[in-house]
């Protein structure tokens, strides 16, 4: 029987295994070092905050794997010998494979700061990181988070849940403004402040210093200020985890290099998820997408390929979501932090400053390019449909109520939004069409 070996039991590896099992009878083994069973990495924060236990973050019950004949090996791969199709495991054991999928995820970035390896300094990626944070959070009078991305804000929220005051050092002018347009970035910045987080923008870390006990006791910023703290969270992003292939014949760049079919340079060896770097034509930047959704979609496409139906990974219409403290965020299509050439935008913000809708459209033909929405939920399937049908801004605004996915009885902001639209485009008098809910979607 053909043996498929997958390194990494994250969303990518597990999706590959599940979909291969649906399509074939191959022997499947997943080798992974971090945990015996698959858990949801984005849920790490909730374990620390006491919303869930570790076991609640496991998407499948423990019997699932045996029932689906997916063998789990809680082990670490040290080397890959592609010539002999053999893996070398930590204890020295070897494992043969016919097909190999590398789905090793990412590692947290560190930028060579003095003191970055002190106890009390850490990133947030793995279960082990969670244990570290658990230890350092005892008697911590303050935490300093360095780097203002999604993981940074999650770490800040985690510390707040344990009543540890937080200082965030952020290189940008306002929170995450290298990704978010200015007004959204400011909206979140205000929300961070209203949670009592001491946010320092345009401030960099210079060094981390140790106390008498050898543990972190303070950081020094590039403005020369010293902030005493027991926890330093380093969250300036993640990079593909390519350690295991470094000494093999598998080619790497920043990540493991693959084509759109997720094939590496070695036949029978594939890479997907966080660790993969998709090579693109000449001038475009290669694609590394460190997202849960990407891992899942790539895993599904790759499973087809592994079962003989060679399938390209297509990201399709972009979508993503996050939650910043109490504010939910969804995005569909493309919204850059600064408008690209030929693009205009329509922006509405609620008076309470915690909700907004930002639509980017093509200035010439008014087709919608993308939407950012904060504090209101929107239907994924409708936005995917509208974006692929190249609907105009006016069309989308008129039908916006149908895309609303907020719970029943929630205040409807669409009337306010369309009024705002009509004042911004005085020539037009748009009216909302249809109602919120499902009946419209089918009959409209």
């Amino acid at each position, binding site marked *: 029987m053909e043996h498929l070996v997958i390194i990494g039991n994250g969303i990518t590896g597990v999706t590959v295994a599940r979909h291969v099992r649906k399509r074939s009878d191959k022997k499947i083994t997943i080798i992974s070092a971090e945990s015996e069973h698959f858990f949801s990495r984005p849920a790490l924060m909730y374990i620390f*905050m006491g919303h869930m236990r570790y076991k609640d973050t496991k998407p499948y019950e423990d019997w699932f794997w045996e029932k689906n004949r997916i063998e789990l090996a809680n082990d670490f791969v040290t080397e890959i010998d592609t010539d002999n199709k053999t893996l070398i495991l930590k204890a020295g054991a070897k494992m043969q494979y016919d097909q190999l999928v590398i789905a090793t995820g990412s590692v947290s970035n560190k930028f060579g700061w003095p003191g970055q390896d002190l106890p009390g300094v850490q990133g947030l990626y793995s279960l082990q990181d969670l244990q570290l944070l658990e230890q350092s959070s005892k008697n911590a009078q303050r935490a300093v988070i360095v780097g203002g991305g999604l993981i940074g804000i999650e770490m800040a929220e985690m510390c707040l849940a344990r009543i540890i005051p937080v200082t965030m050092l952020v290189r940008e002018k306002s929170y995450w403004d290298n990704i978010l347009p200015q007004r959204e970035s400011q909206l979140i910045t205000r929300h961070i*402040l209203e949670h009592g987080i001491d946010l320092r923008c345009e401030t960099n870390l210079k060094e981390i210093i140790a106390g008498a006990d050898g543990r972190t006791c303070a950081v020094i910023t590039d403005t020369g200020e010293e902030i005493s703290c027991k926890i330093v969270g380093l969250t300036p992003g993640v990079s593909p985890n390519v350690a295991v292939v470094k000494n093999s014949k598998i080619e790497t760049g920043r990540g493991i290099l693959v084509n759109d079919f997720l094939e590496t340079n070695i036949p029978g060896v594939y890479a997907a998820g966080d660790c993969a770097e998709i090579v693109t034509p000449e001038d475009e930047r290669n694609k590394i997408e460190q997202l849960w959704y990407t891992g899942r*979609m790539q895993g599904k496409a790759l499973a087809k390929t592994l079962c003989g139906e060679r399938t390209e990974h*297509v990201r399709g*219409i972009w979508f993503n979501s996050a939650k910043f403290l109490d504010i939910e965020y969804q995005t569909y299509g493309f919204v850059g932090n600064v408008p690209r050439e030929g693009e205009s935008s329509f922006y509405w913000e609620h008076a309470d400053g915690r909700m907004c809708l930002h639509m980017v459209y093509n200035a010439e033909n008014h087709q919608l390019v993308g939407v950012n929405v904060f504090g209101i939920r929107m239907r994924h399937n409708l936005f995917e449909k509208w974006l692929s049908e190249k609907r105009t801004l006016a069309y989308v605004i008129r039908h916006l109520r149908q895309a609303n996915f907020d719970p029943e009885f929630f205040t409807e902001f669409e009337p306010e939004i369309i009024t705002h639209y009509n004042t911004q485009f005085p020539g037009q008098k748009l009216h909302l069409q249809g109602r919120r809910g499902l009946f419209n979607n089918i009959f409209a």
Partner: protein
Amino acid sequence: MTPIQIMHSTHSTHNEDHFRLFKTIGLAVFFVGILVFISSLFLGDYQITQQSLQASEDRVSAERLQALQPLIGTTFSSKHNALAQISSAIRAADPQIDDYNLGVTKFWILKNATTGLLKENTFFYFLLSVILAAVGSLLYIVPQFYEGLPGIKHNNIWFSTAMARGAVGITIGTLFIGFYVLLYWFPQYIVNLVLLFDPVSYFIRDLPADQWFLYGFLYTLTIIVMGLRMLAKYRHSRYHIIRTFSIIFFQLIIAFLLPSFLERLSLPSMDLKNAWPLNYYFFTDWHINSLWGGGTFGQFIFIWGMVLSFIVVPVLTYFYGKRWYCSWVCGCGGLAETLGDPFRQLSNKSLRAWKVERFSIHSVLIFAVVMTVMQIANYSSDGALFANYTWRVNQAYSFLIGAAFAGVVGTGFYPFMGNRVWCRFGCPIAAILGIVQRIKSRFRITTNGGQCISCGNCSTYCEMGIDVRAYAQRGENIVRASCVGCGVCAAVCPRGVLRLENGPAEKRFNLPEMQAVN
């Protein structure tokens, strides 16, 4: 820090300090109230006098009162001794007496024989126990309306000793269970507690309090107080605000005040929202007779009961799912959604639990249906059919299901197995509504395309133990018999993936044709 930052951080810590003070005082006051309440159990002597016997005239027959004459003038300091003497005196006069009648007799004789400080100051003790505990709870709860920013507040739940099966949780559960055991099977041992409620009971219904009035009053008060907590916790979610008001309305007005008012008018009284088979005595001969014999109003209630159970319930469930009843109207659901909310994460989400659930809830349904068929056959044959069995089956049902399952396990197990044990594993009306919901209804929980990150918040906080994530992460809608539509999965989801909604009954199960979906 910039000035805004300083303002924010000092502002919030300042408030939090005040809140903490309020909450600590509230907790202390609550404990005092509870202590007074429990210690009232041991307050007073029991003196049987001519007057005390007369006071029970409405409840105890003249022959039995006669049998107790020899005890006149006796004073007992122990409830247990008093009850033993009362029992043997009654049994001596009437060896055939059944447990039910003996229990009622003991309860009233002892209640009216209570003397002492408590008896003379029932209202004062009522204020000092029940009302004080309520005030303490409010002091604890009201600050929660102003605490932090609106949003999901589940921090540190799994580290809590009360909410994660720790010592406090076990204590609360044990107290609940003890309370239910006394209430259902040994009400004569809580006569002093019942006495506390006499003034309110007279005020509301012009009748002395019995254990059911005590229970109804505490039940309603709990739903109001813990309903306020729910309103504070979900102040960002209008679905939950409206739903909680609905629960409070139905409990306070329909289940408590209206029946009390009817009693005051000596009309047949019934909780007008209690549908068959939750209302398992609906078709018993005594119930039908009492309603039918109760004039036009009684007949109206009877017909309403039929319309509610067999038309309103299924039709509304077709349109809105079972939630309209289970988490908006029902009293058991009302307690679960208020008092029970802190325990919702304790429900078991495993596939095994789901199998047990389907087996047990449908077994109870079959039990209830068989019993009802017997009741109707018995009634319409003027007692000829199943003559000896109907009553016994009723007894068994009310003991096993009505009291042990719905009460002791249903509420007593909140801190162990979550707040919907009864609704999930036992309630026959939930079973019927579930079948309608699963087979033909417009209700579903829609999954929002591919946005799920499999975090598990939805499953964890599902009180019915539905593994919501199992559906959401595949992009599938959730159509499950057991879903009571509490709306919490949608509220806790950090990615806005779930929406409770009504749509066309067809195609509820279809996966959206999206490439992003797994």
